[in-house]
């Protein structure tokens, strides 16, 4: 290990982050600045912050490792990430969400939906779900960063985890969203560089695009017997339709995360920070390139690690990683890259971890201070409450990161994204596209979305129900229903139920007051500015 070189890189890196956070701290004068960066963030900074928050070590380490096991099928997820997460989200959702948030003077997703539907229940319930369940996702992102530090610096995993958590808590608590977004934009630049080098190096190592894929196709006979029985047909082919692996990969990993991105509180918050539709349009260009380089690279490199490891060690990736899916990408990078690049990738992955955890802990702190405490009329300094939320969120994530088992990153991420999609997405789409949604329709949609999802994870979906053990304790069997329900992600049925509840109950119940709905939709669906005299709320 080249300690002087590593020390120089880390000092420069942490110095720049500290300076950017300091700028954010200096510019944070109000709760509005802390929560939504004063709603005046340039589009290019928003896009870089969105992309780097979106893509974490979970995507690069966890899902990249899963691609090393399941193959190129996971690229359906990176396609959805770009198509839904960038094109659809920025072009169709971003502008109405930011306008409605400004119309209703709200600065979190939960409070936006609560005000839109005139329901305190929606605000505190979504806030509570975020506060209680988001640490599962924050925890695995921490694990991803710590695993790479462990592998590349030969550092103790627990020490790496603790050091990462302390750095992140300081940045979030200090600079608010402005500091986070400035630092995110810088870190996104390091991620672009690191991932572009990884993509080019990998295809070059395996002999080019077509030859690399052909080599991997020729290795299909090396797929472990247990995976073949589950429906694995090789790393360059889709799993057998309807097999356990097909259901896991398509329903949980691809659909759960691919759809769930549209309802991620930490990403939706980014829309509230820009001052114009033009900023969102510009963000599409930058966001598309970033997501391709981040997820596209991870899901192309993951399967191709098998070619590299087989040629160099005679083993496939999961064997080299000793059965821990989360170690495939760290092992590969440490094996294929020269030492100087490993430090660059360490900074890349640290950036991926910090940017996402920053965003998650910021949202958790906002959920605590704005959605829970303010809704429950706890009167105290809002910035103090937000910083207490940072401390609680960080401690919760670290505790979970210590508790969670190996190979958990991709699965826990899919859990969080899926539960958000079922609980929030129908109510969010209804809020911005259908004036006829009623309070009762939205309340039941949110409650059923979360409720059915949680029921599915505890009693039906084997990956969670078996380790939880609650179903076994109550009913004497690990899951209530047989295959395929043991492998169908709860998102599949919970989002149908929550969507149906939103529509049916809204058609049967009393609409919201007309003037309130008109206020919500003011300026939405047209390009013009608000009537003279109205100002953006800052």
């Amino acid at each position, binding site marked *: 290990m080249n300690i002087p070189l590593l020390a120089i890189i880390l000092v420069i890196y942490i110095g720049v982050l500290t300076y950017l956070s300091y700028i954010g701290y200096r510019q944070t004068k109000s709760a509005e600045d802390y929560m939504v960066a004063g709603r005046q963030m340039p589009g290019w900074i928003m896009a870089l912050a969105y992309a780097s928050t979106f893509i974490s070590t979970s995507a690069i380490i966890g899902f990249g490792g899963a691609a090393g096991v399941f193959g190129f099928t996971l*690229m359906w997820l990176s396609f959805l990430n770009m198509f839904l997460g*960038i094109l659809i989200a920025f072009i169709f959702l971003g502008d109405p969400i930011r306008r409605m948030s400004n119309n209703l003077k709200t600065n979190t997703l939960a409070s936006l939906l609560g005000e839109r539907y005139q329901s305190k229940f929606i605000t505190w319930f979504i806030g509570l779900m975020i506060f209680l369940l988001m640490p599962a996702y924050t925890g695995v992102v921490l694990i991803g960063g710590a695993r790479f530090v462990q592998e590349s610096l030969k550092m103790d995993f627990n020490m790496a985890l603790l050091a990462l958590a302390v750095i992140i808590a300081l940045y979030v608590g200090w600079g608010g969203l402005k500091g986070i977004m400035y630092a995110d934009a810088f870190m996104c630049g390091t991620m672009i560089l690191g991932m572009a080098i990884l993509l080019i190096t990998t295809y070059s190592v395996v002999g080019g695009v077509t030859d690399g894929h052909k080599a991997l196709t020729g290795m*299909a006979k090396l797929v472990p017997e247990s995976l073949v029985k589950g429906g694995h047909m090789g790393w360059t*082919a889709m799993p057998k339709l309807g097999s356990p692996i097909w259901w896991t990969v398509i329903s949980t990993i691809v659909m759960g995360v691919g759809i769930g991105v549209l309802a991620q509180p930490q990403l939706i918050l980014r829309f509230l920070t820009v*001052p114009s539709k033009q900023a969102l*349009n510009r*963000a599409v260009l930058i966001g598309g*390139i970033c997501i391709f380089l981040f997820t*596209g690279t991870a899901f192309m490199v993951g399967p191709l690690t098998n070619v590299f490891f087989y040629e160099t060690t005679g083993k496939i990736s999961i064997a080299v990683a000793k059965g821990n899916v989360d170690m495939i990408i760290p092992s590969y990078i440490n094996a294929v890259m020269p030492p100087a690049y490993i430090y660059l990738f360490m900074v890349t992955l640290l950036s991926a971890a910090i940017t996402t955890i920053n965003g998650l802990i910021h949202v958790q702190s906002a959920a605590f201070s704005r959605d829970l405490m303010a809704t429950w009329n706890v009167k105290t300094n809002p910035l103090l409450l937000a910083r207490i939320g940072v401390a609680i969120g960080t401690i919760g994530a670290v505790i979970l990161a210590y508790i969670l088992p190996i190979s958990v990153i991709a699965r826990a991420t899919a859990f969080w994204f899926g539960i958000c999609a079922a609980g929030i997405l129908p109510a969010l789409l209804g809020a911005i596209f259908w004036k006829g949604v009623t309070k009762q329709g939205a309340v039941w949609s949110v409650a059923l979305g979360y409720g059915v999802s949680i029921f599915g994870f505890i009693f039906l979906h084997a990956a969670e129900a078996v380790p939880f053990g609650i179903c076994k304790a109550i009913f004497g069997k690990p899951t209530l229903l047989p295959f395929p329900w043991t492998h169908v992600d709860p998102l599949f049925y919970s989002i149908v139920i929550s969507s149906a509840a939103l529509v049916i109950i809204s058609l049967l119940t009393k609409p919201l007051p007309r003037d309130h709905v008109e206020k919500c939709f003011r300026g939405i669906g047209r390009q013009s500015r608000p009537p003279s005299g109205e100002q953006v709320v800052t």
Partner: protein
Amino acid sequence: MLGMADGWTSLVWILNVAAMILCVVYGAIHWNKGGDGW
């Protein structure tokens, strides 16, 4: 195609590149559109 074992996997590889290009083209065409304020 592209050395993949089935058409779906080739298709998704191409769709990834196409989606990225679509984002770039859309962003470039709309760079100065959409107004610069509320």
